[in-house]
């Protein structure tokens, strides 16, 4: 290290790390870089580190530079990076670095490996940093729980970092000495630290008596160590965990079955037969990216050995969408289904202990019985190669039974294994109730909440918010409770507004921390930027409480020092920082022995919530448990099922809706837990009857600029007794609210846009999908007026495998982040003006708006984006030639040339063009401008835009390749190129690349017999090939269709076909 970067007036932030910016990797010319760890050990760096990350001096602008100025400077550096190349050429000053950080090339992104806790596990990430600000999140291929993919929520974490509504400093509730008004005052970080230290000192005297720490599913070993250290100092203190959608049911289920709480780790890749009982395994629970990746590896049609996936669920999910067989069943009947399967398994010679299935199941319908029989037969035939998974919302009883079934099937140790919990803490809704009781009884008088937002999402009958409010009352008040509460949170949210103290929490992208995945794999969390508002990590707060002085970085290093050993620590540490994950750190499986008597007892004890309706609670697809409610990307992301944005609705089946006389948007009153809420209804084909699904997380009382007034708070219905699943009622309430959906018509109308075969049909007629239109129309090939293009160099193309697409929409948010796509708000969505370049259409077979088979219809997701037609209708009609064909086959939009006639949009058969009806680039909060990708123009008012095939990535790869002399290396770089959607996709359904390179996956896919072009019959020659969806149905449930597959397809010629597939 010759020279050291110095902290200039514009802090170099994450870019302090001297990433080897000139060391290209195979990953599309992008760069993995080491960070601060590179410099470890150098005293000067340590000094710098203190200056930058020391908790005593959280990042604050240098004297004389207020935040506004700082942002202006940041803006200037963005301008420098070419961000401000919009059509309007905004005037911004450009300032050079006074001292340039070494190895920092303006505009050249560097990637840092990090990880975030989520879904009760952790996901490894590679975060792109541009000029010191994180601009894009990707999955870390080295991390077992992300394997290079992400989910929409993980993509959207980036925007949360720049949320202008984040808390900017500690706040303190001040009780007046005598009379006077109580008030909340903003205080400095030093004061907050002083308070914590004195609070800790006071607690030490009492050995922590009366003190509790409430954590969320943080997954940090460092925090766990800090909490352990705290418990040594404060042995009487309690630590409890509450996560609104946690894994406590699964862990308790393992406790019942195996005598101790265990983490269940699935390996779907080894599963020939997968049965998912009411769980959204591929999108929002378990370890969704890993599950989706593993699922996808067994669904490569051409590789053979396709797995078979059965899903039984109440409300349709992405997981149910890709299933071979989907059974709609009330969530409260899942145990009965599992029992029926257990009984059936016995018939097929599986040694299911008889007491397990002794409980008399509720009467199942014929479909359900047939399903149970078929599934059992399949599972029995795949002993040790099958897998049964229960969803998060199912009670521990079901998890225990499922664990027992997996044991009986010999799946344990093969497709499923159990590992110890990372950090054993009392958790769950009941624990929160116990905490509240303890506060009520004055057993607890001090409460530290690390993250979470219990005042918003605690169970309805746990009066958490009321308790915090009562603690603020005058001490004389009759209902006063003595409680000093400290909430560490990124926002002054519902809980922080009521807590005695609020301390800003650092965002995961600003934190030094670490994570442990569900299987025990360790990974680091390293900051990409200094905390924008001086936030702190949870571990730091605990450290201060027990009078420690170490900052987050030191704490993490200490944890890892113990793990990696003193010998050769620096080298190992730097490697971990570079890779983002500690290889081979997964926990060993625990030998389990089934206690079938306990399981049988639990199964026998289970009481399903009985009532006219069951009410099922699910995390909101936009807000999750509320934490993403203020995130514009998530609010605007159409959910995978209803394609609804900016609101939540009650989902009921079509049959139930017609029984109650409901149509989309009608207001219903849902009653449960003695409370009721009114919200619009969404008619959901495929939902279980007499069941209503409510999503939790919208209707925040926190008045963020995004979440204010969005959705309805359904928490009042979510009580302890029915935290995930409750009895209740649904009634028409009169009133109507138009659903803000991006897709209003879900039926194919016989159009061959989605093509689908079964495995048997595919074997019999592999070219059916490619040729069906030609075969039915018998029309000679159309000719073009214009000469065909020669693509002598690259020929960019894409393939999308419909067998793999779950509809999870991670790609949509990835595209939004990569391409600076604006967020419009509900008004824009209601006017159908959403700007997504890539959308996921969801289709049923059927006509006149009615899905064939109504509630039994199977849906298929179809990602739709610009097809980069070789004979593009949009290019012909633009009067100013603003959209043109590149020699490499890209349909290019020249924003600066576009005058906005919108003719191209009319003439696009795929309707993928998006118009800037207003100046969406205006009024972007200053902090959120930092999220913009400087390689992509921010479009101004009046111009058309659409998918560019990530032309900026294409060009980066081409430039990187051009610098190489060696042709093999050049090819390698080009082959590493990924579009943003492709990179995010958890099932690798999207392939992108050079069709002229026969070795590339995209070229191989495009040559497959099942590759077809949507709307090929109008001769626009699209550049995207869809790989027909191949399902692998069980012939017991779905009799093989005649080998003449015509019935399975569309017949555009005579208008009597149905495009969607097989007879249901």
């Amino acid at each position: 290290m010759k020279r050291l970067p110095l902290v200039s007036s514009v802090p170099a932030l994450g870019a302090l790390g001297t990433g080897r910016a000139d060391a290209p990797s195979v990953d599309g010319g992008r760069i993995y870089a080491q960070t601060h760890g590179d410099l470890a050990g150098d005293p000067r760096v340590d000094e710098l580190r203190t200056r930058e990350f020391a908790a005593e001096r959280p990042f604050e602008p240098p004297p004389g530079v207020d935040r506004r100025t700082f942002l202006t400077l940041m803006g200037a550096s963005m301008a420098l990076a070419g961000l401000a190349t919009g059509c309007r050429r905004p005037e911004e000053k450009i300032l050079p670095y006074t001292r340039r950080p070494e190895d920092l090339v303006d505009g050249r992104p560097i990637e840092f490996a990090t990880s975030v806790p989520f879904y009760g596990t952790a996901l490894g990430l590679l975060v792109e940093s541009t000029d010191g600000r994180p601009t894009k999140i990707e999955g870390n291929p080295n991390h077992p729980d992300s394997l290079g993919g992400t989910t929409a929520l993980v993509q959207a974490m980036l925007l949360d970092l720049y949320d202008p509504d984040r808390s900017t400093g500690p706040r303190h509730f001040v009780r007046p000495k005598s009379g006077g008004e109580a008030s909340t005052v903003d205080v400095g970080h030093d004061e907050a630290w002083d308070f914590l230290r004195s609070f800790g000192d006071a607690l030490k005297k009492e050995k922590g008596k009366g003190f509790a720490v409430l954590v969320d599913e943080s997954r940090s070993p460092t925090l766990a160590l800090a909490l352990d250290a705290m418990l040594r100092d404060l042995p009487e203190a309690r630590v409890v965990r509450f996560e609104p959608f946690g894994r406590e049911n699964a862990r308790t289920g393992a406790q019942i079955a195996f005598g101790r709480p265990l983490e269940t780790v699935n390996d779907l890749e080894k599963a020939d037969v997968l049965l998912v009982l009411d769980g959204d395994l591929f999108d929002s629970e378990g370890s969704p990216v890993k599950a989706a990746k593993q699922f996808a590896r067994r669904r490569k049609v051409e590789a053979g050995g396709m797995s078979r996936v059965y899903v039984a669920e109440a409300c349709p999910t992405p997981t149910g969408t890709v299933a071979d067989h989907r059974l709609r069943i009330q969530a409260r009947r899942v145990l009965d289904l599992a029992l029926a399967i257990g009984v059936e398994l016995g018939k097929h010679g599986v040694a299911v202990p008889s007491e397990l299935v002794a409980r008399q199941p509720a009467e199942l319908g014929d479909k359900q019985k047939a399903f149970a029989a078929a599934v059992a037969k399949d599972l029995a035939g795949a002993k040790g190669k099958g897998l049964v998974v229960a969803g998060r919302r199912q009670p521990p009883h079901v998890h225990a039974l499922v664990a027992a079934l997996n044991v009986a099937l010999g799946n344990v140790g093969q497709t499923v294994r159990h590992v110890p919990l990372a950090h054993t803490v009392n958790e769950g809704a009941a624990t929160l109730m116990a905490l509240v009781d303890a506060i009520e009884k004055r057993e607890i008088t001090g409460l530290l909440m690390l993250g979470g937002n219990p005042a918003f999402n605690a169970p309805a009958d746990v009066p958490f918010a009321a308790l915090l409010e009562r603690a603020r009352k005058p001490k004389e008040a009759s209902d006063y409770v003595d409680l000093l509460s400290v909430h560490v949170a990124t926002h002054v949210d519902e809980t922080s507004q009521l807590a005695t103290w609020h301390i800003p929490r650092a965002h995961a992208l600003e934190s030094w921390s670490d994570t442990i995945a569900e299987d025990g794999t360790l990974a680091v969390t390293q900051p990409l930027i200094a905390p924008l508002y001086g936030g702190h990590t949870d571990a730091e707060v605990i450290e201060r409480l027990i009078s420690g002085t170490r900052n987050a970085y030191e704490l993490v290093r200490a944890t890892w020092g113990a793990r990696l050993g003193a010998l050769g620590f620096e080298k190992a540490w730097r490697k971990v920082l570079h890779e983002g994950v500690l290889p081979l750190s997964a926990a060993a499986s625990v030998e389990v022995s089934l206690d079938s008597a306990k399981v049988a007892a639990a199964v026998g004890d289970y009481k399903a919530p009985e009532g006219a309706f069951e009410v099922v609670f699910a995390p909101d697809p936009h807000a999750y448990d509320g934490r993403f409610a203020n995130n514009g990307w998530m609010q605007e992301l159409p959910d995978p099922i209803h394609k609804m944005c900016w609101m939540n609705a009650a989902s009921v089946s079509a049959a139930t809706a017609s029984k109650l006389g409901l149509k989309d948007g009608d207001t219903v009153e849902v009653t449960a837990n003695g409370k009721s809420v009114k919200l619009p209804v969404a008619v959901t084909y495929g939902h279980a009857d007499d069941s209503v699904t409510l999503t939790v997380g919208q209707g925040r009382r926190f008045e963020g600029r995004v979440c204010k007034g969005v959705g309805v708070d359904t928490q009042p219905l979510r009580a302890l007794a029915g935290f995930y699943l409750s009895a209740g009622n649904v009634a028409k309430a009169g009133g109507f609210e138009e659903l803000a959906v991006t897709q209003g018509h879900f039926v194919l109308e016989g159009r061959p846009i989605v093509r689908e075969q079964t495995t048997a049909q595919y074997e019999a007629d592999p070219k059916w999908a490619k040729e069906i239109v030609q075969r039915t129309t018998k029309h000679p090939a159309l000719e073009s007026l214009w000469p065909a293009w020669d693509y002598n160099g690259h020929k960019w193309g894409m393939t999308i495998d419909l067998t793999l697409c779950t509809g999870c929409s991670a790609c949509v948010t990835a595209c939004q982040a990569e391409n600076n796509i604006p967020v419009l708000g509900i008004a824009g969505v209601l006017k159908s003006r959403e700007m997504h370049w890539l959308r996921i259409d969801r289709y049923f077979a059927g006509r006149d708006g009615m899905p064939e088979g109504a509630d039994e219809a199977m849906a298929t997701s179809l990602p739709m984006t610009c097809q980069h037609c070789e004979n593009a209708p949009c290019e012909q009609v633009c009067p100013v030639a603003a959209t043109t064909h590149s020699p490499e086959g890209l349909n290019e939009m020249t924003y600066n040339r576009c005058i906005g006639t919108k003719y191209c949009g009319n003439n696009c058969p795929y309707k993928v063009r998006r118009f800037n009806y207003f100046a969406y680039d205006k009024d972007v909060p200053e902090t959120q401008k930092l999220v913009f990708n400087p390689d992509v123009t921010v479009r101004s008012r009046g111009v058309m835009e659409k998918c560019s095939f990530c032309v900026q990535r294409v060009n980066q790869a081409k430039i990187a390749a051009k610098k190489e002399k060696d042709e093999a290396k050049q090819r390698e770089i080009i082959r590493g190129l990924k579009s943003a959607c492709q990179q995010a996709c958890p099932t690798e359904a999207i392939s992108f690349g050079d069709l002229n390179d026969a070795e590339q996956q995209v070229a191989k896919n495009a040559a497959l017999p099942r590759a077809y072009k949507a709307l090929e019959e109008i001769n626009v020659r699209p550049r995207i090939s869809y790989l027909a969806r191949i399902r692998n149905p069980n012939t017991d449930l779905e009799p093989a269709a005649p080998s003449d597959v015509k019935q399975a397809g569309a017949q555009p010629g005579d208008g009597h076909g149905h495009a969607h597939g097989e007879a249901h």
Partner: protein
Amino acid sequence: MATTSPTEAAGDLPGTRAPLVLGKGSFHSVTNDIAGIVEAKPTPKYLLGLLFSMSILMVLAGSLAKLVYSGVGVWGLDNTVFWAWDITGFVFWIGIGHAGTLISAILFLFRQKWRTSINRAAEAMTIFAVMAAGIYPAFHVGRVWFLYWVFPVPNQMTMWPNFKSPLLWDVFAVSTYATVSILFWFVGLVPDLATIRDRAKSKIAHVAYGIFALGWRGSHKHWLHYEKAYLIFAGLSTPLVLSVHTVVSFDFATSVVPGWHTTIFPPYFVAGAIFSGFAMVITLMVTARKVLGLEHLITIRHLENMCKIILATGTIVGYAYAIEFFIAWYGAVEYERYAFLNRMFGPYAWAYWSMVSCNVIFPQLFWFKKFRTSIPLMFAISVVVNIGMWFERFVIIVTSLHRDYIPSSWTYFRPSIWDISLFVGTFGLFLTMFLLFCKFLPVIATAEVKAVMPIADPHGHDSHDEEAHAHG
């Protein structure tokens, strides 16, 4: 012909036709009647009308200001329906313009003398309608300040417009049409402007009209040149009548949108344009002849002739509607079939059936002479036809777009207040211009009308073919 002085009743007799100018007016009285309108002080009724239309014009100004200030998002457009009231309005107004050119050029070439009483006003209507129409393509773009990029102006970017684009063809077609129409109209005005110049009492009027009269003295040589120029313009305009709406129809016909992509569009659009244009002429003339006291110059015979043209073109339009459906079925293209069924029975069925009743059913009443000769009835039907023709364009544009290939993107277009206000505003422009025209220019081609008066044809009673001599 009967020796009795011609009356309106004469038109009833087989083999005879009502004269084109009624009453025993002399050349001088005709001049007085027409020039008198220009010379007289504006009546309170007129001023009130002008005030009204100018207030609507202000609506146009306000709507455009809002549009340019905020963006085309103020309209009800979405990601699927990128054109709606804007291009509907454009085609509507362009269509209306057609009658003027047809009357002035084609009827001139076919020696239809009855055109003389109405051609001036109809041509004026054409120009004002084209002005109203031009607002739409100009202002419907996202960045109106770069509109000039559609013109082939040499520039430092060395960028030409895209000559493949039908929108560019529109630019040329409409601008040519506007230019030729204005020149044609102006040439016809020259002798009459000279008359008003000569009668002018104020210095300003004298000079102003004098400038535009181009020194016309009425010499034989002038008349000779005038007649030639007029004939040439008529010849130039004739193909334009067909070409403009043909090119406008290419905007749709050359696209891939089901419901747009049909080869029948050019003739269908031209017929529709003439249909709507004549309806608008009737609407205006029936009002103007009453208000300006020109019943003897714009007679029932003129109006009845126009009713017949409406009947003919309305029937052609009805035929086009039918043949479109036949082809959609016969062509066996799923998407096109759906597009047409969707028109009839889809969410916009109300618009479709409004269109059919207005354009196909009501004009059929003109088979009855009672309807062709009753002023209130023909006025009512002409208004109905205008409404129907607006709906036709709306149906073609919006019902085709709102449900095209990909069902996921189907939407339902609803106009915003600004869609409506802009359209209303264009009527303000049209009416204001027309009222100003009525006041400042001779509304009837005085010189031409004189030529078709009975007294201009001393031998008229000898001939059944008045046209043969009328020009003398």
